[in-house]
């Protein structure tokens, strides 16, 4: 059986070089690759393009990489939780491409599924449509959007096995499964790593074919942005 296990986050991200394009899973701080982000702080790799729905908060998630100025460009749909991000954006230090969330998800899915472009209604008549082909299909206008791919995808799952099969939990799934398919090298960090053959094949969300490296993460903080109780 193929064994994709690497020792830890440091080993997993060792060959991520300056100017790489990364995809990072997560919605807000839910389901983000905490260990890989910490490891990137250590390697100090710079001029990264990061594709991620959000940009973390000032002192957690991708926000940490923004603070150290390791990110040169973000491709995201919503960045409202991060003041340092807003500052860098308004001052022009950071390039930002904002996309409708469904368009972002589908562009990533398309990148992993060999679909170079597709038409979507989201963004027609808005500045998102600037410079993009508009086509009328069955009487309604659609924008042509192209696929997104990454040099490395950094994924967080709940359980995984040594062959790279992954299971997610709750709403921590979000962008992780499609990002796993769109990375040249996909690195999965999991809370529990088990031997191949242990997980029920009926319950696998992401098949191991998409995952090149896997490790069991440590010290998950799982910070909550809006702690709300009744």
């Amino acid at each position, binding site marked *: 059986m193929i064994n994709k296990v690497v020792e830890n986050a440091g080993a997993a991200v060792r060959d991520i070089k300056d100017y790489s394009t990364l995809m990072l899973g997560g919605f*807000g701080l839910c389901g983000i690759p905490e260990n890989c982000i910490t490891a990137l702080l250590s390697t100090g790799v710079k001029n990264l393009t990061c594709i991620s729905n959000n940009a973390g908060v000032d002192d957690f998630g991708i926000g940490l990489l923004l603070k150290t100025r390791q990110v040169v460009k973000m491709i995201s749909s919503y960045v409202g939780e991060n003041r340092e991000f807003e500052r860098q954006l308004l001052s022009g230090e950071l390039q930002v491409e904002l996309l409708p969330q469904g368009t972002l*998800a589908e562009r990533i899915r398309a990148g992993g599924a060999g679909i170079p472009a597709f038409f979507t*209604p989201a963004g027609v008549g*808005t500045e998102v449509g600037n410079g993009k082909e508009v086509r009328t299909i069955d009487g309604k206008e659609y924008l042509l959007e192209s696929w997104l791919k990454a040099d490395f995808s950094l994924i967080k799952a709940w359980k995984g096995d040594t062959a790279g099969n992954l299971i997610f939990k*709750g709403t921590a799934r979000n962008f992780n*499964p499609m990002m796993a398919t769109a990375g040249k090298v996909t690195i999965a960090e999991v809370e529990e790593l088990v031997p191949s053959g242990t997980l029920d094949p009926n319950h696998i969300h992401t098949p191991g074919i998409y995952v090149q490296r896997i490790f069991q993460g440590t010290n998950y903080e799982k910070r909550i*942005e809006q702690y709300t109780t*009744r």
Partner: protein
Amino acid sequence: MALDKIGIAKRIAQEIQTGWYINLGIGIPTLVANYLPQNIEVVLQSENGLLGIGPFPLEKEVDPDLINAGKQTITMLQGSSLFDSAESFGMIRGGHVDLTILGAMEVSETGDIANWKIPGKMVKGMGGAMDLVASADNIIVAMQHVSRSGNSKLLKQCSLPITGLNCVKKIITDLAVLEIASEGGFRLLERAPGISVEEIEQATSGKLIIANDIPEMII
């Protein structure tokens, strides 16, 4: 008197029919879930990958892996399902969600909506709003009739960057219930209790269509 946020949420709740799948935006729309009539059963969709949003958790139930689109901790109701973001927006764009309720900074008399950006001031991003408004057949906007600085939010044309064109069906504000007329214009359907037609006219910058008799909302 003008409605408060809870009053707006209660009035919107009356629009909802049993069996519907509904996406609630952040802010007032989220409150609507608290005021659904007892006999109404709906399924709430969360764009980050859940059908079947339940109430906020008790302290001992809080799970960081279970949040809504506003990043608040939530619970799941019995019969819930979980899925990824591509699937979530597939069901949104595919027209499977019966009703979308969202907030707005501006709405035009032709049903355009602006709610994602104030140039030079606020750059938060559109999140899922553009996908939702581009696809949903039934969109209700929940908002204040007039901005904090005193300007009408119901305009002939939106002045802020657009989120979507010709998409809003109904608007429920602190002053009124209005629908977008097919020929353009805000058709006044109901007044908030104690609010006069003249007050609504003053607060509306776009074309207001007024029939003879405008009833008061029943909250």
